[in-house]
C-alpha cells in the first residue's frame, strides 16, 4: 500500500509509457524490419538486406516523388515564410481592424486539407474555374491550366498549401515581433534610425528562434503532405504529383507491396529526423539544465 502511494506518479504514467513504447517505437522497429525483408502482400520476417531500398531508388515513380518533395517543400517553406513575415511586419504598423485581418489570414489553418484541396481543385478547374472567369472578362487567351499539365501540377499543390499555412506563419512572426523589447525600438526611433533599418538590424535578428520554429513546422507539414495531394490532384496527372506520402500509401493499400511501403516510410522518417532531431536536442537541453 505504501509502495503504491509512493509510486502513484509512475503508475499513472505507465499506460502511456507502454503505449508509446509499443505503438511508436515498437511499430517503427516493425516497419524498419519489414523494410529489410522480401515482404510483398503479406509480411515475411526473413532478413533480406537492402533489396527493398535498391528497388525503391530504382523506381521512377519514387524518383518523381522525391523530386516533388524537394520542389514542393522548398517552395512551400520559402514562400510561406516570406508572406508570413511580410504580413506580420505590415500588421505590426498599428493597423486598424488588425484583429479582423488576422482572423481572415489564419482561418485556412482550421480547415481540413481535404476541404482545401476540394476548393482549389474547383477554382483551378480549366473549364469552369478561374481561367474561364478571367477569359470572361475579355482576356480571351488567358491560360491557367496547371492542374492538368504534368510538369506544372505540383505548383498547384504549392499554391494551395501556401494558402493554407502562410497565415499561421504570420501568427508566429507577429507573436515574435510583439515580444521584442519596445524600449530598444523606441530608443532607435529617437536616434532617427529609419523603420526598415530597425527591422533588418534589430527586430529580425532577435527572432532567429522563430524562424527555426516556423521552418521546422513547415518542413514537417511538407513531408507529411498527403491529404492535399489526394484531394487536389490525386497524385496525377499520371503520377506527376506523387509525394513520398502518397507513394507509401499506394504501395501499402492499393499495390499490396508491404516491403516498398515500409522502406519508403523509413526514408520519410529519415528526412524528418534529419531536420527535427537537432531542433529537439537544442530545445530539450536548456530544460535539463534547470
Amino acid at each position, binding site marked *: 500500500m505504501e509502495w503504491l*502511494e509512493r509510486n502513484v506518479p509512475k503508475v499513472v504514467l505507465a499506460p*502511456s509509457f507502454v503505449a508509446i513504447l509499443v505503438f511508436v517505437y515498437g511499430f517503427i522497429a516493425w516497419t524498419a524490419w519489414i523494410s529489410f525483408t522480401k515482404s510483398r502482400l503479406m509480411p515475411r520476417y526473413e532478413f533480406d538486406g537492402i533489396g527493398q531500398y535498391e528497388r525503391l531508388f530504382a523506381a521512377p515513380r519514387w524518383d518523381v516523388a522525391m523530386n516533388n518533395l524537394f520542389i514542393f517543400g522548398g517552395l512551400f517553406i520559402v514562400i510561406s515564410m516570406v508572406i508570413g513575415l511580410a504580413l506580420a511586419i505590415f500588421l505590426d504598423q498599428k493597423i486598424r481592424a488588425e484583429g479582423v485581418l488576422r482572423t481572415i489570414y489564419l482561418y485556412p489553418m482550421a*480547415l481540413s486539407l481535404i476541404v482545401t484541396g476540394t*476548393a482549389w481543385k474547383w477554382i483551378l478547374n480549366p473549364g469552369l*474555374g478561374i481561367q474561364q472567369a478571367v477569359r470572361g472578362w475579355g482576356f480571351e487567351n488567358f491560360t491557367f491550366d496547371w492542374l492538368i499539365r504534368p510538369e506544372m501540377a505540383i505548383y498547384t499543390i504549392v499554391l494551395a498549401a501556401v*494558402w493554407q499555412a502562410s497565415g499561421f506563419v504570420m501568427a508566429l512572426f507577429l507573436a515574435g515581433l510583439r515580444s521584442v523589447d519596445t524600449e530598444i525600438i523606441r530608443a532607435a526611433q529617437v536616434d532617427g534610425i529609419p523603420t526598415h533599418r530597425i527591422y533588418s538590424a534589430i527586430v529580425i535578428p532577435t527572432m532567429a528562434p522563430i524562424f527555426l520554429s516556423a521552418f*521546422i513546422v513547415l518542413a514537417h507539414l511538407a513531408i507529411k503532405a498527403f491529404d492535399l495531394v489526394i484531394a487536389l490532384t490525386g497524385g496525377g496527372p499520371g503520377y506527376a504529383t506523387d509525394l513520398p506520402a502518397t507513394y507509401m500509401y499506394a504501395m501499402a493499400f492499393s499495390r499490396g507491396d508491404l516491403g516498398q511501403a515500409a522502406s519508403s516510410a523509413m526514408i520519410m522518417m529519415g528526412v524528418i529526423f534529419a531536420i527535427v532531431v537537432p531542433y529537439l536536442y537544442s530545445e530539450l537541453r536548456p530544460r535539463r539544465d534547470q
Partner: protein
Amino acid sequence: MTSNTLLRWGLYGILILFAAFYLMPLFVMLTTSLKSLEEIRTGSLLALPRELTFAPWAEAWSTACAGTQCEGLRPFFWNSVLMAVPAVLLSTIIGALNGYVFAQWRFRGANLFFAAILFGCFIPFQVVLLPMAQMLGLMGLAGTIPGLIFVHVIYGLGFTTLFFRNYYVTIPQELVRAAKVDGAGFFRIFWSIFLPISLPIITVSVIWQFTQIWNDFLFGVSFSGPGSQPVTVALNNIVNSTTGVKAYNVDMAAAIIAALPTLLVYVVAGKYFIRGLTAGSVKG
C-alpha cells in the same frame, strides 16, 4: 507627410489584397454551392448567384453518392462526431495527468521518457500505418469507430502531454510540497489545486485535438470500413465519385459542411486555437 499617407494607403491596399486572397476560396465555395448546375456552366466562377438554390445543400447532406452509398454526408458526419468526442476527451484527460506528473512529480528517467514522447509527436504516421493495420485486425477493431478512437488517442497523447506539462511547469513546486505536508495525496492535489486553474489549457487541448481529429484523413482512409468512414473520407469520395453528372455545387456544399465544425470552433475560440498551434512550436 503626403508620402507617409501614400505609404499608409499602400500598406492597407496590400493587406486588403491578401485578405481577398485568403477569402476567395471560401467565397467561391459558398457561391458555387448556392448556384444551379446550369448557372455554373454558363456563368463566371467569381459571380454571385443570380438565383439562389439550397438544393445542393440538401443533396450534399442526405442523398449525394460517396462511392456506392448514396446517403449524403450525414451518416459520415455522425461517424466523425462519434469518433472525435471520445478521442478528444480521453486524450485530454490522459494528457493532463501525464503533464501533471512530468511537471510536478519528477522521478529518475522522467526527462528521458518525456523526450521520447516529444519525439513521437514528430514521426510521420506512415511509419506506423502498416503495423497498426495489423494490430487493429488482431484486436478486432479493424474498420470500426472504436478502432479510430484508439488510434487518435494514442497518437494525440504526445501533444496533449506537452500542452499540460508546459502549463503546469510554471506552477511553483513549493505549492505541491506544502500540500503534501498537509497530507494531501497525488490525486487530491491534482483535483483541488491543478484542475481549478486548468481551464485555459484544457480549452487549448480540446480545440487542438478536435481540429486534428476532425480534419484527419490518413488514419480515416487507412483504418475505417464502409460503415465507419469519417466525414473527410466521405467528402473525398463524393468529390471523386464518377457516377452521373459532376455536381460541383453539391461538392462545394459538402466541403463546407465538412469544414463547418472546425470553422465554428475557430471563430468562437480563435485565441485558444492559435495558442495550440504555437504551443508546440514556440519555446515557452
